[in-house]
Each structure stands twice: as C-alpha cells, then as structure tokens.
C-alpha cells in the first residue's frame, strides 16, 4: 500500500461563552470527525474549552510575512481614523 500521511488540521478553541475561538495548535487526522475527537483529547484534557473548530491547514489562506509592510502599509497614513486625531476644544464634554 502506498504510504499516505494523515492531513494536518489547525485547532481553535473557545474557552468560554462570550470569547472568540483562539488558535491552539494543530493535529493530524484522517477526516473531519476524527480531527475533532483528536483535538478534544489533545487540547482540552483540562476543560480548556466549550467549543472547538478544526480546519484543514491547507484550506487556510495566509498573508505573506515577507510582504507584511507593503500589505499593511495603506492603513498607516490614515491616522484620521483614530479618534485621538481630533482636537476637542475646552469646554466641550461628552464627545
């Protein structure tokens, strides 16, 4: 039989209601359900979460670290997006 490696999944855990899922690590599994089971056994042995996401690592589209500055640069000169850009005159409240 030709040798096949189990695909890699990334694991995200919601630690409690009201918080977002957070990346915890990765896991190998042969299918989605087994990935969930393995992620539970590997990453939540001490009640670390109430919800799990697993997604095939190959399905994640990521920005290129080498392009970081060019990619995020357009946001840098728009300082007027921050409220601190604006001067508030003395005597004006609740603004």
């Amino acid at each position: 039989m030709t040798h096949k490696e189990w695909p890699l999944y990334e694991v995200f855990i919601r630690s409690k209601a009201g918080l977002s899922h957070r990346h915890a690590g990765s896991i190998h599994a042969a299918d989605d359900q087994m990935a969930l089971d393995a992620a539970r056994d590997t990453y939540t042995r001490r009640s670390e979460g109430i919800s799990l996401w697993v997604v095939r690592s190959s399905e994640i589209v990521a920005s290129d670290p080498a392009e970081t500055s060019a990619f995020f640069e357009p946001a840098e000169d728009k300082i007027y997006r921050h409220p601190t850009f604006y001067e508030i005159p003395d005597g004006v409240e609740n603004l």
Partner: protein
Amino acid sequence: MYTQGLDQKEQSSDKRDALESAADLEAFQKRIDAEQKIEAKDWMPAAYRRTLVRQISQHAHSEIIGMQPEGNWLTRAPTLKRKAILLAKVQDEAGHGLYLYGAGETLGTSRDEMIADLLSGKAKYSSIFNYPTLTWADMGAIGWLVDGAAIMNQIPLCRCSYGPYARAMVRICKEESFHQRQGFDIMRELCRGTDEQKAMAQDALNRWWWPSIMMFGPSDKDSKHSAQSMAWKIKRFSNDELRQKFIDVTVPQADFLGLRVPDDDLAFDDETGHYRFGAIDWSELNDVIAGNGPCNKQRIAKRRKAHDDGAWVREAAIAYGEKHATKAAA
C-alpha cells in the same frame, strides 16, 4: 518532560547556508535581540531552522518514549486512585509529544519524517528513559525528579524565540506541575509508610538522582553549541546554571522526605547560597547516549512494534476518511 542536552549534535551546515546574505543574517539577529518572536513563515537562517527541528523533534520523541517506563506500572498501580492518576499523566506525555510534533512541523519537516528518524535511531531522545522502572517507588522518583528537572529546563523555553515552540511549551509547563506533584506525593506516602516502603523510596532516589542531574546535558565547558542557541534565544540559561538551580530546590525536598541524596560531597555552601555537589560520571551519560543504557534496545523495539502494529489502523482511517469524502462530494 523532557529535554536534555538537546542543543548537542549540530549537523554540518548545508549548501543553503552559503546563500544567506550577511544583511539577512544581521536583520534576523536584530529581530531576535529585540525579543521579537519568529513565526513559521518568517525568513530564518537554515541553521536556525535545523537546530529547532532537531531540538523540537527530539523533545517530542522524548515525550513519546517517556510513556514506556511509567506505562510499565499502569496495570500494577497499588490503588485505583493511583492508577487513574498515572494513566492521566502518561496520557499527558502523549499529548506533549503531539503538541511538539505540531510545533516541529511548522518548520517544514513532516511528522512521518520525524518519526522515521526516531525509529531508525537517527534521532535521539532523552537518555533518562533508558533506565528501567524496577519498583512502584520509581513512579514517585520519576515524577518528582525527572519531571522536576524537565520543568527547570522547560520554563525558560516558554520564552524561546520561535513562536510555535514557545507556545507549545507554555501549554506543557502548565501540565507539568501536576506530574511533579503526583510524583512527590507518591514518595511522601512511601516515606510515611513502613520501613520497607521507605527503603523502597530511598532505593528509587539512589537510582534516579544522578541520571536526573545528567538530564541537563554536558557541563558548560563541553557544551559546544550552547553559545549559538543562546544568541538565537532558543536557550536562555546554560546547562550548569539549570543543574545548580535544580539541585538547590530539590535537596531540601529530599530532606523533608527524610531521604538521603546519594552524593557524599553534597554540602550547602553558606558563602554562595548554593549546594556544592560531587563529580558527575559523564562516561555513564555518554555510554547511555551511545546506545548502551540498560533499556535502549527495548525502548526502540517497543516503539517500532507499536508503530508497525498500528499501521493497519492508520491505513483504515485514511480509507474511511476518503470514502466519506467521496460520499459527501457525490
């Protein structure tokens, strides 16, 4: 658990090193010096990548092989409570192995490649696991001393410059404290028991003390690759510093238990505030690393057998996954 002298045995540099420009290397070192974390897809020197793959994979292998000495006593634990605790501890070791293989894979080496290197004997694991577990007290001594030494080694790794490794270590260190305490608890119970039980605890300490001390790796003067690992902030403290720290915190614990540390030269030095200790027999460590420890062959043979026996499960899981993927697509 379980690192030991993992900064050793750097392989010779490969051809890619020559292609790295001085400017890239300098920029990389600047990031490290500024305490910036390096992430999987960031540019890194080939030697940095190699060092990490070796260290992380050997660390993972140590967790996996480390299940064997304790697994040996699972079915013979003295009570159901002790059995449940030991089972949870051994399961944690498997989990630690998986976190670490995952961190290692981010560097571009597959899980299967790493495991193949373990099974072929090319990759090392911590030599401590090549000692046999002869009595129940060894479960106590391993948790207390071996996991204790591992904690000393691993806490600084939580601040390692490589992000995925550092994050895996944070997770591991949180769990490790349970391991050490359950071991100390076993020792304490034995030391409060009959003379025979206390003698069993002393015997375990006698056999595990020196191997635990050696887990920190060769002394600094013989540790060739420490300087580079320190500069890259993979390593934060030298082997000898960590060893001294371990001895300083552990000897008072042995005193509390009423056990004698098997070192005639052990003495507290009022001037330095540290314990002085006797000469370490490095020939023993080197011999065990070279493959001549009491259990080297047994450990690898057992791992190979487990891997071979599990082959049909891995294949069946793949076939099942593919069948369901086809059904879902249809």
